[in-house]
């Protein structure tokens, strides 16, 4: 960060914060380039790469064929020669095609050559879809799978401020970084400082302080958690919301300190339960804060089925604010008053993706 006094934050959208972080990093580092399918379209990854193309031109922001695995290898080979590639996947589901390069090569490069072949500072952005029939292969959320492997940093910005800060941190890291960005957050508006700043990895954010229950929420689930916490506050229940921001490295201390304070823990995550991030946090609490727990840890994740397309099925698929409120009341031995469904935000997303 520069020594300049902080300028006041303006309210801007998540997608514009991503764009601002990218452009500021590109200004400082001529080795950064952005590639992947559709990065140079007028629609520019839902608006997040349009400005970079306008300012830095097609030599640094350029389209690529559908070749996810080789493109990742190409990014690695360019990074080894001193470049800083950003590979973008309009849906993170396509990253499965790149797992060989991501996991067998990028994640292990530094280690498997004993530090003698340098490192691979690539940044891979993957967008998580949700709703409007995104369905089984356009709405998965890959953080749990990717965070499994030593050597990859996995971050999930949940606010415009962190969208910018984590992008800039990723673009000066000395290792590969996966940024998973939730499509439902792109139009979210929030305060974002104007200057250059990097949000450090491994530092969770206490989004809302509270004493009665800890709610660890990732990515879009932070939005649902905030709605839920507002409703619960009216019942006299103060929920502490923690956004880990980086899945790996994980800030265990902030989560554990909160659990020790509240004694109750819900983990709301966008991926599945089985071997998932929510299970990891449950294990963390069980191993390191067991005496503080006043009841079982609960996980709110995707139900154990692929995501269906039909609206009737999709409407019961995702955990929402009402789900969080219901579960929180239950954990505190209270009963919901009236129909909680009314608290859930109406999804205004118009598609197609």
């Amino acid at each position: 960060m520069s020594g300049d006094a902080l300028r006041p934050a303006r309210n801007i959208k998540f997608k514009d914060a991503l764009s601002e972080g990218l452009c500021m990093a590109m200004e400082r580092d001529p080795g950064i380039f952005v590639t992947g399918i559709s990065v140079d379209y007028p629609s520019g990854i839902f608006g997040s790469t349009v400005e970079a193309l306008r300012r830095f031109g097609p030599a640094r922001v350029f389209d690529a064929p559908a070749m996810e695995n080789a493109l990742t290898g190409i990014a690695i080979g360019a990074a080894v020669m001193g470049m800083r590639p950003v590979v973008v996947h309009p849906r993170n589901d396509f990253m499965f095609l790149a797992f060989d390069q991501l996991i067998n090569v990028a994640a292990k490069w530094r280690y498997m050559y004993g530090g003698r072949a340098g490192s691979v500072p690539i940044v891979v952005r993957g967008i998580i879809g949700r709703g409007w029939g995104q369905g089984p292969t356009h709405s998965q959320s890959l953080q749990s799978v990717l965070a499994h492997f030593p050597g990859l940093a996995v971050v999930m910005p949940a606010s415009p401020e962190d969208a910018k800060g984590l992008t800039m941190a990723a673009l000066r890291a000395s290792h590969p970084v996966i940024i998973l960005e939730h499509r439902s957050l792109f139009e979210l508006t929030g305060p974002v400082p104007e200057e250059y700043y990097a949000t450090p990895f491994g530092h969770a954010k206490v989004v809302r302080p509270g004493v009665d229950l800890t709610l660890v929420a990732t990515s879009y689930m932070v939005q649902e958690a905030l709605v839920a916490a507002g409703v619960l506050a009216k019942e006299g229940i103060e929920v502490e919301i923690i956004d880990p921001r980086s899945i790996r490295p994980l800030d265990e201390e902030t989560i554990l300190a909160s659990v020790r304070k509240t004694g109750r823990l819900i983990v709301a995550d966008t991926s599945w339960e089985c071997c998932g991030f929510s299970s990891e946090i449950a294990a963390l609490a069980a191993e390191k804060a067991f005496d503080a727990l006043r009841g079982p840890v609960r996980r709110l994740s995707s139900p154990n089925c692929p995501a269906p397309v039909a609206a009737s099925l999709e409407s019961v698929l995702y955990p929402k604010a009402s789900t969080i409120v219901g579960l929180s009341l239950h954990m505190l031995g209270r009963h919901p008053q009236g129909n909680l469904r009314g608290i859930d935000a109406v999804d205004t997303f118009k598609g197609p993706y």
Partner: protein
Amino acid sequence: MKAEPARTEIPGELRLEMHARLLRVRIASRRLAELYREQEMRTPAHFGLGQEAVAVGVVTALRPGDVVYSHHRAHNHYLASGGSVYELAAELYGREAGCSRGRGGSAHLTAQAVGFIASTAILGETIAIATGSALAFSMRGERRLAVSFFGEAACEEGIFYESINYAAIRRLPVLYVCENNLYSTESPLSVRQPAGTELCERARSFKLKAERVDGNDLAAVYEASARLADGLRRGEGPAFLECMTYRWLEHVGPHFDHEAGRTYRSREEVESWMQRCPVKRSAAEIIRLGVADEAALAALSNGITRDVEDAVKRARAADPPPQGDLYADVW
């Protein structure tokens, strides 16, 4: 006898230099395979005995600043590039002095000081990575080349086609060197590629310049590589070089097929290829051309043998990585 006009164009000194490099690769590889039998090198090793001329011929056509990537059968390319025998042996023994400090083993070698960037174990990975290094050179306007060595089985992986397609679109300075040794593990070409397949034709259909050479003919490999490298430096786009060769030992490990009871190749077939030994052919050519005599070549060979022996002894005696370093260099 067929005329071979191009042969005489290689200066005697270069011929001898290449032969010395070839001998170093052969003698070191053979010694490592012998020592491997002692079960002290605990890393799956794919020895490249019989295929050495491909590595040496290609690497000799490179210049400082060019970069080399290899695959699971990486020793030849590492050694041909000038990688240290001591550090290779130490890597196989799992020593801190190994080229990858005992973390990578036989398939994950590096020697960046001599332009050998890395080898990886999974088929086709470094085809894309080399392409990416060429992209960096192209974006920065540097006149450097990237070379990717791989076996013909990597041409059965999707990443090969993704990569050559991309390199052709962007006219990247990559030389794709396919070492066609006819077998993938123990699977023959007949179960992997349709009869009559010409890999050069596949490469040409992607708009690459492509040549096929006898990979056991050191001079032929060098000449083709030099020709293709010239085109690459002129910005003519990527090239594909298919080198026909043969692996003498089993797919992984130090044994001949017959010693290990392997039946996928006949002993006659292996022996016929051993008759076409690239080292013997290079030596015969040098003597025929009067560049050096038999005694001089024997002295050269003896000197290398002594150096290799010294290197492997020191490597074996070197220290293992300290256990406290298990987590070092993860990030």
